[in-house]
């Protein structure tokens, strides 16, 4: 776990020190030290119950931590809140809620609007631009209940884009989407990276980590390892993370990065 030395701290998008989160005194995240440099695509992987969602939430103070500190661009979350764009799990909201696609995207602007002030023409136009980026502009007036899973995910992505953040935290952005949407989403993420943004995504599909991401954080309550995919994504590390229960990775020698 020597990733601290891999980067200069002034170049860090996210700096997590000694973060511990417990539910009823049972730790779900145990003493996490994690530094995320700016301008990378980082995958967080680990088995069910590893604390991936909890980590994303703890960074934003959505769950209270028992110990530890999180810095966003060198400041606390409260101070640099507007630098964070958040995409919660698609399944965490009720898609029967009476609202339209464009309205959901506009919700992304609520954070910068603050209390009471309502979104106006500027936010409306911005929301349309973001919908266009994710290829959903023709659906702007649709009821959200009529969307497919992939379309829902694109709308969520557009809602994060409107936040115009520097660091994007995404909870399973590829969950339940078809191959076309997956390709569309990843090209948007790469475009974000090319503009110097940092994307941190919970990702389940180990097969595509090498292809999609630059860095990977392997998590199972404790941090197993974190760093560039080439160094970290090894059979040894995956066995440590998943307890040797994955069998799809074949034909690689121990210590060598998976897929290389």
């Amino acid at each position: 776990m020597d990733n601290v030395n891999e980067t200069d701290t002034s170049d860090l998008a996210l700096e997590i020190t000694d973060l511990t989160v417990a539910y009823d005194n049972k730790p779900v995240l145990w003493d996490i030290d994690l530094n995320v440099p700016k301008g990378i695509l980082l995958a967080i992987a680990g088995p069910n119950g590893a604390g991936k969602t909890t980590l994303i939430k703890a960074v934003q103070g959505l769950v209270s931590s028992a110990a530890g500190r999180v810095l966003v661009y060198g400041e606390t979350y409260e101070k640099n809140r507007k630098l964070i764009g958040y995409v919660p799990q698609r399944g965490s909201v009720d898609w029967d809620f009476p609202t339209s696609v464009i309205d959901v995207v506009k919700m992304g602007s609520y954070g910068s609007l603050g209390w009471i002030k309502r979104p106006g023409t500027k936010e409306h136009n911005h929301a349309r631009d973001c919908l266009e980026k994710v290829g959903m502009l023709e659906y702007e007036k649709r009821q959200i209940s009529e969307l497919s899973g992939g379309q829902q995910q694109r709308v969520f992505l557009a809602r994060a884009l409107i936040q115009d953040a520097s660091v994007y935290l995404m909870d399973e952005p590829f969950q339940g989407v078809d191959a076309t949407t997956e390709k569309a989403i990843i090209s948007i993420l790469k475009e974000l990276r090319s503009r110097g943004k940092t994307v941190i995504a919970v990702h389940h599909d180990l097969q595509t980590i090498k292809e999609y991401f630059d860095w990977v954080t392997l998590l199972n309550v404790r941090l197993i390892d974190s760093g560039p995919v080439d160094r970290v994504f090894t059979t040894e590390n995956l066995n440590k993370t998943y307890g040797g229960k994955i069998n799809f990775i074949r034909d690689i020698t121990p210590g060598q990065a998976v897929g290389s």
Partner: protein
Amino acid sequence: MSPHEIEIQIIAILVASSCALPGTFLLLRKMAMMTDAISHSILLGIVVAFFLIKDIASPLLILGAALSGVLTVFLVELLNKKRFVSKDASIGLVFPLLFSIGIILIGLFAWNIHLDIHAVLLGELAFAPFDRVYISGTDIGPKSMYVMGSILLLNIIFISLFYKELKITTFDKNLAAAFRFFPNMLNIALMTIVSITCVGAFDSVGSILVIALMIVPPCCAFMLTKSLSKMLFLSVLIGSVSSVAGFWVANLLNANIAGSMAVVSGVIFGVIFLMAPNNGLIAIKIKKIKQKWEFAENLLLVHLINHEGSAEYEDESKIEHLYKHMLWTPDFASRVISTSKKKGNIEIVDKCLYLTDEGRSIATASF
């Protein structure tokens, strides 16, 4: 219409509108049954506040009620969070306890005052015009009208001020929390509004039927629109219509007004449930039947294009063979054929079916 009758209807509309506004958010937050819990347990708050203040007309009673409403929500969520019991069971555990303590206290100490149990359960809108407000001797109307008017105004101000915040905390609690809109605090504020509304409605419709006014109109509106602002508007409209209609039904049958209001709103829901243009039972049934026929017509075109140009085409496309090949009954098959012909998708030559150009392009598109 006598002045009293007009006043009763105005009060009924005020009550229904005040209830429909926060009710819309309760429904969307999947907290409909919380209304029932709050509307019952506020009784305890009213009784305790009455014992402390000894004045049945004091506005501080509303404060007591609001506190016990929030206490109810807190207790329900506490039980639920600790995973002892599910949410519906925790509602079932909390409010009967608080409500019965209230009932026992009334029975023990206050049996001779206005707070009698019958009025608590059902309310009595018919008596509302008798309690009047006088300003230097001049009668300016029934007290409930002013109380409910103020509550409605409070609800309108609260919801229009925090519309955006209520919307995002209801739809996506996580993002709302990340934006620091404090979902829990807003929830407490909303529950306070619900409690205050319940206290007002309590006098008119009693604790049992408040839920009908809070939940039924928003349920109707939800079937009719998929926009939050329209849903709020329609809820108020439907609530008002059912309260006025309920008043006249009660008049006709010489029945309890609150009961009639609840029945009418239930009937309105039933009608909407059947007839709503997009989600209604009938609309869905019609859509399904239409889909069935369209699917069969497509199937026929695809069957024909599959065999087009092959040696056995004549055999496959003979009308009498169609029954066998498609496993359709003769009636069903001839109806599919005649509609397809009418639409110009097929032609019949010597009892054989042939695709027209249009039919062929539809069949190709179906792949």
